[in-house]
């Protein structure tokens, strides 16, 4: 993205490292998605690592960059599951909302506000998925789910467990990433 040319102390190797760490962390999140480690599971639901990554990314970036990150990671997650309903929608909304909140200085980078924002965004992202299922069930001929009530009952269960687990595990991913990005992009916007 554009920020790599903006950095004043740009040594090519540093950029290479920065990209490596950024992409590596995404790859790590993707790899950890199918695992269900003990302590990382609640009602069969594990933390939404990609959502945590998007929040960590969006906290110090513009709305546009955040939306792109949400789109990219959403598509990656689609590739692991199914193309419809897409995860990109939920993750894009997550990125955009987080970036907007940050711009209006509602957010400090401390553990509580990150956990809270991840909690809220996990619910938003799962709601985006449930809405897509609902639209499909209402307007498209062959629906995946039998009834609307089934979708929303399941949504409650998934959204709550995902939100709780994601917000608890958020610092584990957020702090290393934040530390790295602050260290290697000192000239970036707040």
């Amino acid at each position, binding site marked *: 993205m554009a920020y790599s040319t903006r950095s004043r102390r740009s040594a090519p190797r540093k950029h290479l490292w920065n990209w490596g760490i950024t992409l590596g962390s995404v790859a790590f999140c993707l790899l950890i*998605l*199918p695992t269900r480690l003990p302590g990382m599971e609640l009602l069969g639901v594990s933390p939404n690592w990609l959502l945590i990554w998007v929040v960590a990314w969006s906290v110090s970036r513009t709305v546009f960059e955040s939306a792109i990150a949400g789109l990219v990671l959403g598509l990656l*997650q689609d590739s692991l599951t199914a193309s419809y309903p897409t995860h990109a929608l939920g993750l894009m909304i997550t990125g955009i909302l987080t970036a907007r909140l940050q711009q209006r200085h509602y957010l400090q980078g401390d553990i509580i506000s990150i956990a809270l924002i991840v909690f809220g965004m996990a619910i938003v992202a*799962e709601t985006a998925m449930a809405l897509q299922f609902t639209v499909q069930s209402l307007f498209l001929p062959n629906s995946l789910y039998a009834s609307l009530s089934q979708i929303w009952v399941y949504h409650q269960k*998934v959204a709550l*467990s995902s939100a709780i687990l994601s917000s608890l595990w958020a610092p584990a991913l957020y702090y290393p990433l934040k530390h790295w990005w602050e260290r290697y992009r000192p000239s970036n916007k707040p």
Partner: protein
Amino acid sequence: MFALRRWWEKHALKAGLAGLAVGAAWLMHQANGAIVYETYQFLTRPLQPGLPTDEQIENAYVLELQERVVELENQNQRLRELVNYAEQQTRPSTMAAVIGRSADHWWQQVLLNRGSRDQIGEGDIVTGPGGLVGRVLAVTSNSARVLLISDPTSQIGAKVSRSRSMGVVRGQSSSQVTMEFFDKVPDVKPGDVIVTSSYSQLFPPDIPIGRVASIDLGKSPAPAAVIQLSAPLNILEWATVHPFTPKLDVNAPPANILKDDAEDSQ
């Protein structure tokens, strides 16, 4: 005497404690260490794989049934050989370990550690201990993604093994699924075994799915039953992949679709 009294005054506490300890140990010994074992059991309860005794007995019973099935299958094989039954399967069944779960919360999927290099293809049927598990959605060279039958999007043509009442089984994102019957008054009761029917396009007939847990005959539009899946999907560790080609060509004449399973569907 005096010396003894002085010693007692000096060491009364110690002696008392020692006596208490020995007494307690003796009691414990008499009780065969019950307290220790009870405490140990209580403390390690979160770490134990729960398996109550009736379940163990049931497991032994299941083992016996499995052995009988193996015997019957062998007999069946012999008989088929005697009548020159042409073997339809060309690819062998493959055992695979479950190495992962769905990458998000809305799909009930598992990831297997075998793929197209082990001749697993899309549409293959996956079974586990207990019965049907799902079918292969996508394969890479060394992994296969399986849509579980507990997924709400999975639909299976099924029948009651005892009475041959037909219906459709739909997942519920849990270890129970629902079955909607085609008949208005199906012949079904709790405990009945549900197997895949020969009308199912995506699954071969006569694979066990589960048992009827409860029935709601008044449900509209069709009477429905709750089925307890017999395969433990949430703790599945190993699965068997059977080659299968889905019968997606529904316009083919029925004789071609049903093949040798016609006697089952009656």
